[in-house]
């Protein structure tokens, strides 16, 4: 038996897990320290079905999906978590939707055609993500993109019935705030194409860089770099940090109350960008040519970077240099009486 039809004034969201690890949902469950369902209800959003939160299982769940695909229940938003597997040989058999005898890719195509909005939750659904790494053994795609290129599982020219492209809440996993705020903005009706960046990511978070607000800022300024895991220094020069290139407000807001990748002591791997899963070298080592990192801060001319890095290294206070190579503060800031004018 299908669930009772939703009231007409709710914003109906159907959430499917394609080839996912479930991590986007796990991240979302902690939304606003209150839980996903409650965080969404505040905006009139109703989850028609969600793999972790709904009662309906088996035939009841298939009935919900069928009602949406047939247009019997209004589908305001289709959320897909996980990449879409086209393999083997275009059959989609690497992921069959249980109990339905049909590949997940076909369900997604049918439902996306009915949806007012289509949202890719996480970098897998956006660009292919980790399953697309290496030689991509399952022919994993994003909904709209395959890596940097248009042409995911839904085709290059896809538009949902609202006219918007797929909204890509990229991130591995995305911050729960990105998920809630994007869905809320869609429910409030205030999202236009101008509010998405060139890759369909909501500019509300993608116009920032993960570097903004990084707690290692002083070490970055002086190029006082960490040399090994747990060092407090800047992670860019040696340990592979891509925060100066990575879209995201990761260090402006907190993750799980207190954290961020760089606050946790490890490199940003640029998980909001296409192809982050296949870097040119090891994730935790900075690729360099002639001692200069290959991936420079975005918008920064190389010559200036080199010049400023040399200058700031020569100006590094001893305190900053010492603390960069320790896991706790070795030298505290000097304490002197404030000079009066």
């Amino acid at each position: 038996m299908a669930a009772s039809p939703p009231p007409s004034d709710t914003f109906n969201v159907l959430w499917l897990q394609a080839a996912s690890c479930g991590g986007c949902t796990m991240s979302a469950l902690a939304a606003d320290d209150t839980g996903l369902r409650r965080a969404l209800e505040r905006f009139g959003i109703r989850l028609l079905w969600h793999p972790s939160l709904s009662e309906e299982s088996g035939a009841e769940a298939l009935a919900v999906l069928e009602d949406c695909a047939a247009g019997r229940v209004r589908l305001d938003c289709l959320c897909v978590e996980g990449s879409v597997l086209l393999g083997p040989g275009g059959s989609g058999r690497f992921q069959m939707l249980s109990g339905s005898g049909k590949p997940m890719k076909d369900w997604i195509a049918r439902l996306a055609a009915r949806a007012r909005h289509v949202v890719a939750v996480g970098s897998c659904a956006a660009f292919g993500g980790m399953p697309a790494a290496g030689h991509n053994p399952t022919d994993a795609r994003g909904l709209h993109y395959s890596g940097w290129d248009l042409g995911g599982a839904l085709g290059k020219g896809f538009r949902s019935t609202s006219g918007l492209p797929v909204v890509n809440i990229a991130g591995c996993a995305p911050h729960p705030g990105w998920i809630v705020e994007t869905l809320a903005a869609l429910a409030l009706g205030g999202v236009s194409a101008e509010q998405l960046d060139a890759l369909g990511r909501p500019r509300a978070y993608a116009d920032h860089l993960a570097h903004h607000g990084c707690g290692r800022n002083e070490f970055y300024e002086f190029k006082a770099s960490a040399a090994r895991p747990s060092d407090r220094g800047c992670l860019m020069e040696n340990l592979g940090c891509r925060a100066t290139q990575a879209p995201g407000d990761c260090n402006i807001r907190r993750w799980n109350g207190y954290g961020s990748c760089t606050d946790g002591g490890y490199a940003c791997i640029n998980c909001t960008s296409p192809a982050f899963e296949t870097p040119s070298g090891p994730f935790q080592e900075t690729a360099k040519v002639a001692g200069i990192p290959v991936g420079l801060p975005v918008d920064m001319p190389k010559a200036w970077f080199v010049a400023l890095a040399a200058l700031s290294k020569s100006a590094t206070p001893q305190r900053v240099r010492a603390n960069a190579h320790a896991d706790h503060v070795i030298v505290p800031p000097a304490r002197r009486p404030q000079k009066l004018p």
Partner: protein
Amino acid sequence: MTATPTRLIVGPFNRVEGDLEVTLDIRDGAVTEARVNAPLYRGFEQILLGRPAADSLVIAPRICGICSVSQSVAAARALAGLERPDIPANGTLAANLILAGENAADHLTHFMLFFAPDLARECYAARPWFAAARRRFAASDGACAGTLLPARARFLHLMGLLAGKWPHSLALQPGGVTKAVDAGEKIRLLSIVAEFREALETHLFAAPLEAIAALEGTAALEAWVEAAPPEQGDFRLFLHIARDLGFAGLGHGPGRFVSSGSFGLFAPGVWSQGVPSDFDPARITEDHAHSWMEGGTLPPSAGQTRPAPDKPEGYTWCKAPRLDGQVAEVGALARQVVDGHPLARALIAARPGGSVHDRVVARLLELARLIPAMERWVHAIRPGEPFCAPPAAGIAEGGSVGLVEAARGTLGHWLTLQGGHISNYQIVAPTTWNFSPRDAQGNPGALEQALAGTPALPGETTPVAVQHVVRSFDPCMVCTVH
């Protein structure tokens, strides 16, 4: 009475992590045979091939969003097996806290979001406890999750502090952790754990954690249940319902329990029909007879993953791990039985294969044991002393295994390096054990055994008792096949 069995294909199974389909042969209102299908294959073992060794620390956690830390720990331990770092005490304590944080959060998530909502289904409307079950456990607005989901979110602040974020952290390294804890952060950690303890003691147990951990047998458990009204704590309400629905008689597994041990708190070993023995990972093999995989039976150190989607004997992407050629069950019940907790041993003495009741009880018992241990570990942290040993240079060749206890059981990563790059990587996850298919000898996997005899009533398209049995294992299907 029906002469021929009817076949029922059940899916999609929600409130399990990932994709699951179960094929049931039913006769006379009960399951005669079950076949378990993990219908998603992503190819992580293929993706890891050729990558620089330490890239496993980024890739492996992304196998699973709910046991991400467990995957990180297994990957780090596999690397540590080659590098042999001298992990500082703080590094072990912080890693224990991160892993225990995930295990504890997962146990609570399983109870309140995945398992208990089935007790509030309309099919139980005639039971005397139904109104209470609706109030506490309903999937949409039950008060249990309404109260404890925010508590879980605030408990995960521990992850923000120690691991940067959850899921998918890079904080866990072969030599320890990347984040040192200072004196102020140590106090904050104590506050986080104290707040979670308070939520569990108020709502889930309505009792001190130590009182739950001290339950020394079935009589003590019964006495505890009777000592207060049924709605005094969600654990007590569950036990009342479990008694009425006969959960102790439902879902008997193979009766061979395996644990690799955890935190130095839960001992490793094997418990088979009352007989203890040592756990030796070298005696594990993976059988492909009914998997959509090429190749025969091999130990994971030499194992391969080559999909064969058209293999006629196959019915799942899951391989069939066996210990000494035999089926085993892993998870919280296995850990507590192997460790010798008196309540877990008493449950198993009554029913050697365990049951739906026993698995849920063991999970919550373990939760009650984990939180006090976490408090001790936070107290033991010494700010100012090291948290991570420097990485070893030049380890380029060799084989190693990293074992860890995820919330749902024993997880192993078998790593082989050549020229500093990964030349083989095999993962055997908890639900690979529990939800494995038949092997070449025709022996069904643990869930397949547990489902035999489960009631499937006329008119049920998704038999509710089958759902109880399946969810009692807390399956993580994304880890299962990876």
